[in-house]
């Protein structure tokens, strides 16, 4: 199936390199807009509603149906705030950090196969090293966190930045190692191939064909990955770089107005990116019965979003030293064990 830019190029009235560039830009804009729309829905509205449901409240219900127009109200409110630039911030690092945090997570979606709807394949690019690329994009957000923490000239931000580094080192490695165990199964880094490898039927129960999603094939890796992903996106019990009540708001303490929105946005896109990686690697990507693939894909990333919000409402935060311990002494060992076992099983049995 053709990728989205190729499909757009087909309907453009001109050809050549120009058409390729224009088509790519249009396609990227479409994917970007879809993800930003999701974030707009998640940040001001869904997060409030979900948290309220967990904590016995009602939350926004006055503006628009189900309070949905709070999204508009919040957008106006956030954009009209004054941007306060503290004295002694390290520019341009301070200005670049929110951009990096927001854009890197968005970049990750360029290689995610999001399934098709009404014949349009929502997939921007499918390079051979797709998985490596998406992990790289996801990790680049930490660079933004460190920049924000360091450039803010605020001690709480600084602590948050340092914590972000420590946390990401402790969790990136298990995360990627667990991802690699999937690659051993699929024998490819290409995202579309990984999805395709999960479409076969694993076994049939009472007439229902169970697909060979890697969450079912290797549930242990799935659990490891979901936990490491919580740390990767910085949500409870691993929201240590922000840690309100300890270090105020961590790396984002000094950000206001649009910069704050960008950081906030980046966090939500990051959660969705985490969901997209989980969906692609373990949940068969856009696969699912009856509904179009794109809808299934959205359902899956929203399910992961819901899970992170649940963890946020119900699980206490661990301490930074405990997190490092869990990361290096627990997760890393388990991730290596998982990788080794997978390699042995795939190499010997299959």
């Amino acid at each position: 199936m053709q990728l989205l830019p190729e499909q757009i190029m087909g309907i453009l009235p001109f050809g050549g390199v120009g058409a390729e560039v224009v088509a790519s830009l249009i396609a990227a804009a479409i994917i970007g807009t879809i993800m930003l729309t999701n974030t707009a829905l998640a940040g001001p509205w869904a997060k409030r509603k979900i948290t309220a449901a967990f904590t016995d409240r009602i939350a926004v219900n006055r503006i628009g149906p189900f309070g949905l127009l709070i999204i508009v109200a919040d957008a106006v409110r956030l954009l009209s705030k004054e941007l306060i630039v503290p004295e002694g911030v390290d520019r341009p690092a301070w200005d670049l950090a929110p951009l990096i945090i927001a854009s890197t997570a968005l970049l990750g979606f360029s290689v995610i196969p999001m399934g098709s709807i009404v014949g349009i394949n929502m997939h921007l690019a499918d390079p051979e090293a797709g998985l490596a690329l998406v992990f790289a994009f996801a990790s680049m957000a930490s660079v933004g966190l460190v920049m924000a923490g360091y450039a803010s000239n605020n001690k709480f931000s600084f602590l948050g930045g340092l914590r972000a580094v420590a946390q990401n080192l402790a969790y990136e490695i298990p995360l990627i190692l667990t991802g690699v165990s999937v690659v051993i199964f699929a024998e490819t880094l290409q995202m579309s191939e990984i999805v395709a490898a999960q479409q076969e039927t694993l076994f049939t129960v009472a007439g229902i064909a169970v697909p060979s999603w890697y969450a079912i094939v290797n549930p242990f890796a799935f659990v490891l990955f979901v936990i490491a992903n919580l740390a990767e996106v910085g949500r409870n019990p691993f929201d240590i770089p922000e840690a309100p009540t300890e270090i105020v708001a961590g790396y984002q303490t000094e950000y206001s107005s649009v910069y704050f929105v960008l950081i906030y946005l980046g966090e939500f896109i990051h959660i969705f990116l985490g969901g997209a990686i989980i969906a692609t690697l373990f949940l068969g990507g856009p696969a699912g019965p009856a509904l179009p693939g794109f809808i299934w894909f959205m359902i899956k990333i929203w399910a992961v979003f819901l899970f992170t919000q649940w963890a946020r409402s119900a699980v206490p935060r661990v301490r930074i030293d405990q997190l490092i311990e869990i990361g290096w002494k627990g997760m890393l060992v388990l991730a290596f064990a998982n990788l080794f076992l997978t390699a042995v099983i795939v190499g010997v049995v299959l």
Partner: protein
Amino acid sequence: MSLEEPQAPDVGVTGEGDLDYDALEDLLGDNVVDREQHENAEGFVIRPDEVEETLSTLKEEAGFDHLSSVTAQEYQDRYESIYHLKKFDDPTQELSVVVPTARDDPVSESAAGVFDTAEWHEREAYDLVGIEYEGHPDLRRILLPETWQGHPLSQDYNQDKPQIVPLREHANPMEEKTKIPDDPDTMFVNIGPHHPATHGVLHVKTTLDGEQIADLDPDIGYLHRCEEQMCQQSTYRHQIMPYPDRWDYISAGILNEWAYARAAEDMADIEVPEYAQVIRTMSAELCRIAAHLLAVGTFALDIYGDFTAIFMYAIRDREVIQNILEDLTGQRLMFNYMRLGGVAWDLPEPREDFFEQTRDFLDELPDRLEEYHNLLTSNEIFQMRVIDTGVLPPEQAKSFGATGPVARGSGIDYDLRRDDPYGYYDELEWDVITEDGCDNFSRALVRLKEMEQSGRIIEQCLDLLEDWPEEDREIQANVPRTLKPEPDTEIYRAVEGAKGELGIYMRSDGTDKPARFKIRSPCFCNLQTLPVMSEGEYIPDMIASLGSLDIVLGEVDR
């Protein structure tokens, strides 16, 4: 205690367990210059250069291990510091050590070497009254800004003259101050006065070594509202009672009111009708549950880090109590329900509805507490965070004058409701909760279990109130319209507030207003233990310890 061998009573205690002041005077020998009559605690007058010696003799040999409070005041001819001593084993055995100093040179020896808690109390005395303490480790102002001129509770202070401290002259409270100067490995951070976890305007000057706390100095006074001064300008009978609601304003209003009511009633020999005592006991315990709910909720907030389930659940349950108290007192926060000699009014009509409403809450309480235990105390990540962090050894807790759930979390079996009974508590069946963990977990656990006990107390009070014959429902004793206690009556009386021992010292001068009104705030003393709990621990543990102390800045700063 019952399992231990019966100990010989302390020096100065008779076989019946009463204090023998003459024996104590003999123990101190020449140190006692004179004796003074205080209600329920005789005063020994000593010389200002023998404070440490006297107090340490009393602590080591006579068992007075609890320096409850230090009151400073100025007379026409002298300054005076009063050290209110008690015993953790039996707080009815009280003694006042009175230290007069000359008006022209008010210098007295510090007691900080004997009792750690004296450090802050003497700083407050210096700040507000102007007595200087020799040998004090760190004698600076505590409630007022460093640049304040004069001492507001001294007699020659001009209270009408406004003091404007411009920013440029103001000693910068944010200035870096650390006991570990110029160490490149440490970082100074101001946690507060505006910080999500300080539960008010507390400012903690913190020196960090990485993520660990190297040094810590709580800076208070941001919420100082001259409560003592205002009480000194108000009449006993009606005008003082609204103020206690504003000390510990987190639902503990009626408990605070009782502190004043008890002190004033003992001072003026007012007998409170039994029916009113039962209502007082019931409403006070309702307040205690509400206060503990908020304490547990915010403690969870500090650990979880967001407005999470447990906090909202606590707020929701507290709301039910607020509704009950609103029906009873007409107010949701500043109850102003007690009166000298009784309470403002009887239970709301129809009484059946009130009983039903309260019983519904009590019936639900065990399930609710079970849920808190599920969410908090049996949560493994929560346990990982709070067990063995913020350790407060009992010896230090005593020396810092810690009381209430903080002391009981360190295994100190001290509860004024049982040990120095008032109200209707000694007629009811309930237990004092102690935990031996000495850590953040124990303090949270004590609060959760205390709610259960408060529920028991309320239940029994409800039974009593329901069966009380209609003709005997006397809510108010006969109290003169203008209350003028005998001149020079001095009294220090305490009750068990939500946070611990809430004491009040009053001295009358024959008018209808107290000449000196001193509040012994439990939060003030408990907060002093924060450095003990936190130094060497991680920042998150310090925040957790602060949460487990459950301070209310309105009561710390007064």
